[in-house]
């Protein structure tokens, strides 16, 4: 049997191997070796940035950011978002709607959506407006939509070939396939906090329940994998990290600035001013995600 299985011709094996090696090698080159990641200083920086970005703009919160800026040093503050410091695209939601920002700084308004998130590989965006869930391409073309009341917090997860979208509607946590099919209620007892897909575990979703616990559920079978999981499994409310894991960006609403912080060496902080006006917004925009280079 083994001989027969090994004799089966697998199409394009050599080409597939070399294509994959190119991608694996690139991913490895972008990886930060563990010794460097364990350095306490970047962790302090990230933690401080996270505290600020979580909306804790209390005096202590501002002090943390001031400390970061003092310690690391802001090398330059730009009057506009001329470019992103790392490959990828930002997804930003403002009063004017949801925008995609390319690495060269060019921006495209996708439409009047109030929340959005990337698909796992950045090929699509899922966006919410009052009574509609919409899947669209980054150029703004709508692929499908689903009418549901009071749509909030859409999050798209899964593998390259099989995806699901979790979202809230009318107080229910719901799940729908990446093609807009199979919409169903997952939990009527979920707290309205952004859920998080477990990347390495197929279609498992972590979310907060109203009793304060964090549950992990296999959305295909409905099986509860963990009824009391760690809060850290939920989507961080703050640190938006670049696809190459080398930069993080947070919004500093009081200063109307975006603050990009490089996590490795040499440490850098880039600030961008006048953010609200650049997104035609009265209030400070929300950074929804920083996803994969096209």
């Amino acid at each position, binding site marked *: 049997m083994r001989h027969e299985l090994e004799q089966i011709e697998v199409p394009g094996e050599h080409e597939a191997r070399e294509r994959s090696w190119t991608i694996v090698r690139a991913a490895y080159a972008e990886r930060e070796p563990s010794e460097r990641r364990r350095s306490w200083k970047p962790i302090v920086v990230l933690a401080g940035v996270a505290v600020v970005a979580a909306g804790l703009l209390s005096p202590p919160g501002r002090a943390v950011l001031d400390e970061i800026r003092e310690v690391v040093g802001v090398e330059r503050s730009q009057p506009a978002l001329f470019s992103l410091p790392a490959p990828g695209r930002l997804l930003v939601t403002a009063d004017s709607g949801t925008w995609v920002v390319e690495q060269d700084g060019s921006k495209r308004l996708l439409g009047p959506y109030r929340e959005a998130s990337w698909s796992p590989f950045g090929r699509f965006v899922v966006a919410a407006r009052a009574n509609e869930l919409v899947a669209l391409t980054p150029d703004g073309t709508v692929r499908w939509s689903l009418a549901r009341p009071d749509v909030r917090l859409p999050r798209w997860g899964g593998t390259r070939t099989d995806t699901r979208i979790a979202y809230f509607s009318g107080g229910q946590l719901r799940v729908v396939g990446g*093609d807009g*099919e199979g919409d169903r209620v997952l939990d009527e007892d979920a707290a309205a906090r952004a859920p998080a897909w477990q990347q390495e575990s197929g279609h498992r979703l972590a979310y907060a329940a109203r009793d304060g616990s964090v549950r992990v559920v296999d959305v295909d079978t409905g099986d509860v994998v963990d009824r009391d999981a760690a809060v850290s499994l939920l989507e961080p409310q703050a640190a938006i990290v670049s696809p190459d894991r080398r930069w993080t960006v947070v919004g500093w609403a009081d200063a109307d600035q975006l603050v990009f912080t490089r996590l490795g060496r040499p440490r850098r902080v880039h600030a961008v001013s006048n953010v609200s006006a650049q997104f035609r917004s009265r209030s400070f925009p929300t950074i929804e995600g920083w996803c994969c280079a096209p």
Partner: protein
Amino acid sequence: MGSEGAHVRGAQRGSASDLEALFRLHWPRAYRAAFLVVHDAAAAEDIAQEAFLAAIRNLDRFDRRRPFGPWLHRIVVNRAIDWTRARQLRAESELVDAPAPEAERLDGTVLAALAALPPDHRAVIVLRHLLEYTPGEIAELLGLPRGTVNSRLRRGLDSLRETV
């Protein structure tokens, strides 16, 4: 194993040549195993590639005293089963034009006979007869009772004998 362990250590320390050695050692069987379960070369490439990317993401946490192969094969086979179950539905890639899978062009060979089996039966056959795991090891890899593995092996082999 000793040499593989050295490559894992090297890759953890940042050696691209050790990573390449691991990749060249394990890619062919990972890709073949994925293909034999999903019967779609493009999907098999994605699955094997994603397994290696997952390996890189978790490299620092990998216990170098354990063999690398079973850990990689677990990811590959589980993803291949998931992909096969869901192939017709909810694919992000199906929002754009997708090529027909190779499985639709199979002739009456072992590959065609494998295609007639449920995906989890295929996975057990591939793990046992291509990757040469014992039923106990397969049970551990897939999180199944050993009796289930044995019965799937038996039914799978019976079906293959009838078809081929």
